[in-house]
């Protein structure tokens, strides 16, 4: 049986794009699950309509499974609902106006729901997270050192890590290699080689750029809104 996941992030209140993705997904065979990896909100527009829709899907919508992202964390921190700090990262990067804009973009009735969202999902041997388990704002890209990527996979103890914060669409597979370890302690010396295990990091994109993951074949397909999903297509293995 075909099982595909749709992975979406960075909608930032854009209900129109969300509706277009939903309508794309209706035409795509085998998509059983829709994961939204955070950044449902942002400062650029009012996010209430999208948040309403995510919490109360329309008939025919694929039920979204949401986790929180960098923007949600900033909002929750500013409202005192997460950690000790305020939205310091946002304030530092984009100034006070951005913080005010974010507060204005989300009606406080949504805070409870946003605060209830999880940091990530573990499905099969896949980790789905906005940045990584090291940091919600961890900017993993196709250029990130593979050492860091292995560290992030190891921390979550998964073989595949789906990440969104960088907004880039990529599939980086670790295919081989190793590292020698020579350890000396008071009992003597020992040596072994750790092999690179076959693992992947997948960047899912943001906004109108999203990803379909074929669970059975382990292939990712990078799409944009209105783009045709071609089941005969190569896909990226």
């Amino acid at each position: 049986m075909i099982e595909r996941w749709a992975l979406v992030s960075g909608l930032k209140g854009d209900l129109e794009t969300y509706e277009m993705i939903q309508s794309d997904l209706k035409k795509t065979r085998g998509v059983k699950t829709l994961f939204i990896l955070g950044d449902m909100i942002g400062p650029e527009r009012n996010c209430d309509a999208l948040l309403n829709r995510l919490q109360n899907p329309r008939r025919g919508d694929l039920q979204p499974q949401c986790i929180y992202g960098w923007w949600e964390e900033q909002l929750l921190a500013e409202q005192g609902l997460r950690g000790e700090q305020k939205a310091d990262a946002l304030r530092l990067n984009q100034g006070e106006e951005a913080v005010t804009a974010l507060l204005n973009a989300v009606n406080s009735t949504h805070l409870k729901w946003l605060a209830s969202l999880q940091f990530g999902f573990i499905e099969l041997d896949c980790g789905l997270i906005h940045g990584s388990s090291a940091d919600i704002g961890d900017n993993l890209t196709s250029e990130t050192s593979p050492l860091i990527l292995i560290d992030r996979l190891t921390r979550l103890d998964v073989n595949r890590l789906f990440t969104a914060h960088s907004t880039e669409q990529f599939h980086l597979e670790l295919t081989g290699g190793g590292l020698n370890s020579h350890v000396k302690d008071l009992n003597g010396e020992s040596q072994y080689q750790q092999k690179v295990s076959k693992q992947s990091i997948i960047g899912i994109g943001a906004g109108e750029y999203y990803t379909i993951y074929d669970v059975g074949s382990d292939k990712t397909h990078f799409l944009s809104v209105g783009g045709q999903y071609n089941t005969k297509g190569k896909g990226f293995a």
Partner: protein
Amino acid sequence: MKHAVISCLHANLAAVKAVLKDIDQKGISDITCLGDLVGYGPQPNEVVDLIRERAIASCQGCWDEDIIEGLNACECSYPSQLAEKRGHLAHEWTAEQLTDINKDFLASLPTSIRRDRILFVHGSPNSQHEYLLPDMNAFAALERVDKAGADTLFCGHTHQPYVRELKNGSIRVRLQNTSNNNAEEKEINLPMRKIVNAGSVGEPRHGSTNATYVIHDDVTGEVEIKEVAYDIELTCQAIIDAGLPRIFAWRLSHGFEFAEQAEDASHVCER
């Protein structure tokens, strides 16, 4: 030049004195301490005084941090509720004993000390509470040293001394993205790096009751792990006299803390 690195003194004055004497006898004057000056042991002020007197450069350890910041460490630091309770007891006792001057001194300690391409930390460059065990995933271990911009990383916190060389590493990757239709393959060669754990002066957990520390030769790069016997009875009696949990004395005289081996030492405290 040779220099000595000590860690995890844990308020055990007899052990600290014995180790410093051993280092002095070797004619080594350059000493770096990786923190945990206090905690568990019966002489927190005496040990901090001694380190200050001798002007030994020191990082802040997990205990030093907790004593100043208050005990907000998450429970992951302790393998069992019983161990946690004992830890809290030792924490309260130590916080009560320490003079304000010594508390200020612990508060002033840096979380890391850098000398060119050598970095000194208590746990890991990420956190004073992270354990870098000798069998940790080699790539993740290399990432800690490399990301910190060091060739050699000195750490403590595990109370088990070791020297780990990471070398001849490479990673092959295949990359697919929206701009390339055919996957791009590449191989990355990894740098050679070293992790040195200095063990523990005042709370050894490597299997013997001796205090441990390391000597580093910065010309040859060689590291020697040293064991020093000290008057354990003296410290054990002081623990009992101070009213600290007797198990701390029992541990020192048995040399292995099997009752409190962390169940998941690789767990990173996220607080």
